[in-house]
């Protein structure tokens, strides 16, 4: 008798467990579909012809897949009055992102090293001031920066007149590199500081006793152990700078120097001519691919590193 009741309660437990599992998986799959939907729609639309888009269902797979929209987006689509595709703007973004990421990461690493291993009176205040800079709305520095960059441009022009070269002063891409380095410093310093905080100071002290200098310790001891935080910083800076729109539209909003995001916005929000949705979606995909790739390849390290470093709680 007791055996019978036990097996009955056992099957009841199994049933509730089964229901629980079904609900959990059901919810997860539902949310996964919702999260994937916009990307799915973007991808299928970018491979459809315009006829199919106007007549058909946005969720349907393309009946006659074509890469024409991608080719057109890359090489022919009009941005403003120039119809040479987005390839030029794609390279503008690359030319802006690579130096800005490298410079801000190197500076952040050195700052983090100083703020943890070579502390001086007032180091907390210095760090606090740099940290607060991460959170300011950039609207509060937008105008003065525009004025300074305008002056740099005039200086470049007068250099051009007198010595024949502007030495890069006033070049919009270089301006954006400067802007992104300055306003990225807070983040890169934060990442490296939190990471180096947990790095054993005894190793640094021992190296000092052995006569190693400031840069030697950095190069031989800190850097070889910094890979996780370098990955985090590079991904963070890369996505942030690649995706920036505010600075890009304020300081390079017109002309040939536009970064990818501004060009994409111009393509999509243009009011002239027939709207080619497939080309728009292909352009958006091209703009999204570099950061998506970075996330897919290194995303797990990013989250792990970010949790260990930035959000200690």
């Amino acid at each position: 008798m007791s055996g019978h009741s036990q097996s009955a309660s056992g099957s009841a437990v199994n049933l509730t467990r089964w229901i629980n599992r079904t609900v959990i998986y059901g919810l997860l799959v539902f949310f996964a579909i919702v999260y994937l939907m916009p990307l799915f729609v973007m991808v299928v639309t970018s491979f459809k012809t315009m006829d199919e888009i106007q007549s058909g269902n946005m969720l349907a797979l393309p009946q006659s897949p074509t890469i024409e929209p991608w080719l057109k987006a890359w090489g022919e689509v009009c941005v403003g009055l120039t119809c040479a595709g987005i390839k030029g703007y794609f390279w503008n973004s690359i030319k802006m992102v690579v130096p800005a990421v490298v410079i801000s990461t190197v500076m952040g690493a050195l700052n983090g090293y100083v703020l943890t291993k070579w502390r001086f009176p007032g180091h907390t205040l210095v760090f606090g001031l740099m940290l607060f800079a991460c959170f300011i709305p950039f609207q509060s520095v937008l105008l003065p920066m525009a004025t300074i960059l305008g002056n740099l441009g005039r200086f470049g022009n007068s250099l051009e007149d007198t010595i024949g070269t502007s030495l890069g002063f006033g070049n919009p891409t270089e301006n954006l590199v400067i802007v992104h380095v300055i306003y990225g410093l807070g983040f890169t310093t934060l990442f490296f500081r939190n990471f180096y905080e947990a790095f054993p100071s005894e190793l640094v002290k021992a190296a000092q006793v052995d006569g190693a200098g400031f840069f030697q310790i950095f190069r031989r001891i800190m850097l070889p152990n910094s890979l996780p935080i370098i990955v985090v910083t590079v991904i963070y800076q890369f996505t942030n700078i690649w995706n920036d729109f505010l600075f890009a539209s304020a300081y390079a909003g017109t002309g040939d120097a536009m970064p990818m995001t501004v060009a994409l916005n111009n393509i999509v929000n243009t009011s002239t001519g027939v709207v080619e949705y497939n080309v728009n979606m292909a352009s958006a995909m091209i703009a999204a691919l570099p950061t998506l790739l970075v996330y897919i390849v290194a995303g797990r390290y990013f989250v792990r590193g970010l949790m260990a470093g930035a959000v200690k709680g």
Partner: protein
Amino acid sequence: MNTIATTDPLKTRSRQRSTLRGKLQDALPQIVLAPSFLLTIVFVYGFIVWTGYLSLTNSKTFPSYAITGTRAYERLWRWTLESDPPSSWYTSITNMGIFGSLYIGICLALGLLLAILLDQKIRGEGVLRPIFLYPMALSFIVTGVAWKWFLDPGLGLEQTLHHMGWTSFHFDWIKNKDFVIYTVVIAGVWQASGFVMAMFLAGLRGIDGEIMKAAQIDGASSFQLYRRIIIPLLRPIFLSAFIVLAHMAIKSYDLVVALTSGGPGGSAWLPSNFMYEYTFKRNEMAVGSASAIIMLMTISAIIVPYLYSELKEKAR
């Protein structure tokens, strides 16, 4: 220190040089840090003061540097009370209230739910996690383009459901001036909730398994376990996530531009859009600067106490 006693000039010189070099060596860390610190002081704090100064002038298209008083702030204050018909500023700050509270609230709730679901020792976590997280990698412009298409009544969801036979379905929020801000919430939540999930998931994984076991032995149901024990333990993560989301909400600008182009008649504006439009398009530089300062003050009221307590705790 004790160089005074030496008489040999050569020796003195070498000693002086070595102390000079020694001093340089000692100061090297500060010298390395100095450029970054100076850049921050000038380009962040100096520029904030500069913007604050401009907000007290009469600047229109070009900056003018004669202080004329708090007229820009008085105008903003007048507009704050101007609700019928709503002024652009009234629309911007009400939108900020709606967007900010829904965006933060839903991201926290959804992020926590997804993290708890993923933490149930399920199969395929490695596949699901990146699916929730990938929108974070996209630019707001791309997100805006995707959702603009998806929410467009003539092309997206509404049209698709009509095709499937549900012809009475009606969803035109993106073209409706009273509802357009909620479409910004939808796209914003889609983009950021995965990141909040990752934060909560890391928090859940950090909780000591013994605590859960003890509670289960005491007969606590799963629901009670989460409500009474686990969620209170995640408090610090709630705080971190709140700070991250709050500053992202106040900074939001691109999403409104790409998704709605500002909405019908500027009905989707946030204060950041207000600032940009007034400064660069409507030639009201002083008003634009004043709105930027108000944004900064709002965010400082949240961030400064947080940073202060964080840094104080770390210093201890």
